């Protein structure tokens, strides 16, 4: 009898806890979602509603004037173009270097492998800091050049290690078979290993795309020329320095038909669009990456 009562109490406590968990998760999800929804709503609402602070969650007096306005500015496309350039070439170079470093380092018998590994991993913990990097770029003549952002970030030891782990999980027999057929290391890498490594290459490509697209600090550090700034730096000027999307620092008088906040939000929404589109893939590949990792562990 007593035991039965206790059990009942426990299930009541358990149910309460489960309910509490659902509530907290729902609250947190709303806390994440509402600012994003509000951001979009303000970007597509009528000026009078935005100025009087009348937008809570859903848009009022729906219109896309702000989008027309931002999309007609040359400066927005200039910054977008710079970001696409950095992301495109950065990702190609990053994937290329990661694979080229990972393949030899996945060979356990390679002499000096451990020393070279330490050389790579050490840079995950220590770096020269802001000023030496700036001086290096200055000496290389790369200031105000998009490659100043692309080059230092293309060496990413974390991504290299992901590829290396993957290569290590490929059975050695496959390589042996190719060797017996007379293939050299270059052929094995390109003909045998690369096709097998497509899932992991897709994963790190996404990592590089996200990193280069979102990159802000190196662009701010190395690029001063307005025509060379990528989207994140441009966006920061629009949001925090009240810069008009056309590059004038007078957002408040920019356009009588539009609330400044709508123009800012439109620029933010357009800049986050690529990440939103990639997001389903990001989640899926992340899961795959974790499965690969757990099989290894």
């Amino acid at each position, binding site marked *: 009898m007593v035991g039965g009562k*206790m059990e009942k109490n*426990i299930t009541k406590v358990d149910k309460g806890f489960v309910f509490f968990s659902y509530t907290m998760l729902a609250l*947190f999800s709303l806390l994440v979602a509402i600012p994003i929804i509000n951001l979009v709503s303000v970007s597509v609402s009528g000026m009078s509603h935005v100025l009087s602070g009348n937008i809570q969650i859903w848009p009022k007096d729906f219109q896309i004037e702000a989008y027309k306005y931002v999309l007609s500015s040359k400066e927005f496309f200039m910054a977008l173009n710079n970001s696409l350039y950095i992301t495109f070439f950065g990702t190609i170079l990053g994937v290329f270097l990661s694979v080229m470093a990972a393949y030899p380092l996945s060979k356990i018998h390679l002499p000096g492998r451990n020393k070279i590994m330490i050389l790579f991993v050490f840079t995950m913990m220590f770096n020269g800091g*802001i000023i030496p990097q700036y001086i290096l770029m200055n000496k290389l003549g790369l200031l105000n050049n998009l490659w100043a952002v692309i080059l230092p970030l293309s060496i990413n030891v974390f991504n290299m290690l992901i590829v290396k782990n993957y290569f290590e999980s490929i059975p050695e027999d496959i390589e*042996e078979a190719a060797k017996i057929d007379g293939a050299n290391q270059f052929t094995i890498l390109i003909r045998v290993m690369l096709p097998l490594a497509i899932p992991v290459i897709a994963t790190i490509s996404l990592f590089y795309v996200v990193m280069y697209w979102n990159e802000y600090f190196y662009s701010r550090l190395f690029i001063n020329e307005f025509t060379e700034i990528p989207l994140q730096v441009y966006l*920061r000027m629009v949001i925090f320095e009240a810069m008009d999307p056309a590059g004038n620092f007078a957002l408040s008088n920019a356009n009588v038909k539009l609330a400044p*906040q709508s123009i800012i939000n439109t620029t933010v929404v357009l800049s986050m669009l690529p*990440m939103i589109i990639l997001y389903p893939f990001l989640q899926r590949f992340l899961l795959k990456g974790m499965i690969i990792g757990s099989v290894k562990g």
Partner: protein
Amino acid sequence: MAQKVAHGSKVDNLVVKPQRRISTRNGFRQLYFILFPALVMLVIFKYIPILGIVIAFQDFNIFDGVFKSPFVGLDHFERLFSNPDFYSVLSNTLIINFYKLLFWVPLPVIFALFLNEVRLLKLRSTFQTTMYLPHFLSWVIVGGIFVNILAVNGGLINELIELIGGKPIKFMYDTNWFRHVIVASSMWKEVGWGTIVYLAAISSVDPQLYEQAKIDGASKIRQIWHITIPSITSTIVLMTLISLGNILSNSFEQILVMYNPAVYEVADVIETYVFRTGIGQMEYSYTTAVGIFSGLVGFILVISANTLCRKFLGRSLW
């Protein structure tokens, strides 16, 4: 079974070894060749800047370069310790990052425990999809999102404040509020993502332990307290140690994006200070010294925290 197979292949290895040695040796030169481009990039863009910290001991100027600038020993470090600006940015750095750590250590654990209770898979993945999203947004975009909801004129939060009869607050320009904004926005961005590592740790707990506890009549909360939490303690310690190691360099990009002269007094951290005075006023040597100091302190913090953990908890990073 598995062991037998593994054993078998080991024997195979031994048998084939001499032949394999010869065949792989031919490939080594090719392998080094493949490795070469990445190694060159590593040396140029990682190791040259690391060697470049020598300018902290010089009176570096850009025309003489690293090789001709005169050495001045520890002058810049002496200047550092006698500079009130430095103490102000050091204390800002410590306050903001320990304030963050206060939430960053427990929140992902708590939400991972909550997520673990959700049995409806669809609902669970909806929660996860929503919570993970901000991680993929840049700091500039997160800054834009917060500027929008914190706007004095029509921002969602200030509307709520006015609704309950308060006065609107200039969150981004108010020295009393700015640090809270920094911590709140960083939790908004990263807590969801932070649950992943704990979810993985929780899922690897032996389910038999829970079965046993259920038979003994333990409630969910007791199960969490006595089984789940002890099983993931090492992960919590590890994650905390990593955050502690970054404590002096954390939040740099976020603050660089979100701060403004009105809040320098409370928000200027070591690296934003290095960035502004180093690049802006071309104080290359002095700010490199500041950078070295910050790296050193982070290193010492990790080492000592790690030693304490090994001594008292029997767990460590190394």
